[in-house]
């Protein structure tokens, strides 16, 4: 399995993502944003977390115009699988590959901690190895994770089962930790080949780090 991981100026989770997928036996290549093409043998494209272009203007707003993004658009349009984690999710929203937008957390604080998430939908590659309503422990680290979409868009997300993950407490009761509409932590597109989530599954792959709940998420793509 070949994974391509994008790298922009300010990206800081590309090596974590590389390490995580290598532990699962994948071949991982880091792709600099100036490349015009992603490798043609890419099985999964990952846009990792960080602060691309310093989060200037808006998180993800400048990265979406990087050279490599045309190739990402056509890869996704042809059914290629794309995973955006944290800043990667923000870039996918800015690029229009996922619906909605991110606002600053309602507390106005940067939130960096482990948080429990509830699996809402498993009818997709990403969460196929997880159970509906399962509670997993995955760290978050973001300033702009307050997901917003208009009413019509939210209805569409719900009807098409595009909401994949929500924030919850350890017993599975939904909680709103950053102002996100319906406690949304992760979504996919209608075609189910583009996934975005704010939490970092690649940081929850070893007991030493506090959780291994990210492993089965990432493994979903390797099925």
């Amino acid at each position: 399995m070949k994974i391509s991981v994008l790298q922009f100026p300010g990206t800081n989770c590309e090596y974590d993502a590389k390490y995580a997928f290598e532990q699962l036996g994948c071949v991982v290549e880091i792709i600099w944003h100036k490349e015009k093409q992603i490798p043609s043998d890419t099985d999964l494209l990952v846009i990792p977390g960080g602060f691309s272009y310093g989060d200037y203007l808006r998180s993800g707003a400048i990265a979406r115009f990087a050279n490599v993004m045309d190739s990402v658009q056509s890869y996704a349009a042809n059914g290629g699988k794309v995973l955006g984690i944290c800043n990667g999710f923000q870039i996918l929203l800015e690029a229009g590959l996922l619906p909605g937008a991110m606002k600053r957390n309602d507390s106005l604080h940067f939130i960096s901690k482990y948080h429990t998430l509830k699996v809402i939908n498993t009818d997709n590659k990403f969460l196929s190895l997880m159970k509906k309503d399962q509670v997993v422990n995955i760290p978050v680290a973001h300033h702009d994770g307050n997901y917003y979409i208009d009413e019509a868009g939210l209805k569409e997300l719900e009807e098409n089962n595009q909401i994949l993950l929500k924030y919850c407490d350890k017993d599975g009761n939904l909680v709103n930790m950053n102002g996100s509409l319906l406690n949304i932590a992760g979504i996919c597109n209608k075609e189910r080949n583009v996934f975005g989530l704010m939490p970092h599954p690649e940081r929850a792959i070893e007991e030493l780090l506090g959780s291994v709940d990210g492993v089965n998420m990432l493994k979903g793509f390797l099925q």
Partner: protein
Amino acid sequence: MKAIVNVALKQGVLDDQGKATHHALDTLGFKELVKNVRIGKQIIIELNSTDKESAKEEVTKMCQKLLANTVIEDYDIEIVG
């Protein structure tokens, strides 16, 4: 010539920064006076142009492509100088 672009969250999209600032103004003794606070950003673009109309058209394109995220934000443009 300059374009002064104001970008702010749309009406109806909760402005947490505005709300927090409103609350702070209340506690500083301005509660009676302050009705609402909204926070946005101002982008000042110096232009190589003398044609206000075409400049405004081009700056509108800039707003739609990059300067504002129209899912959550509105913008207005003033051409001066």
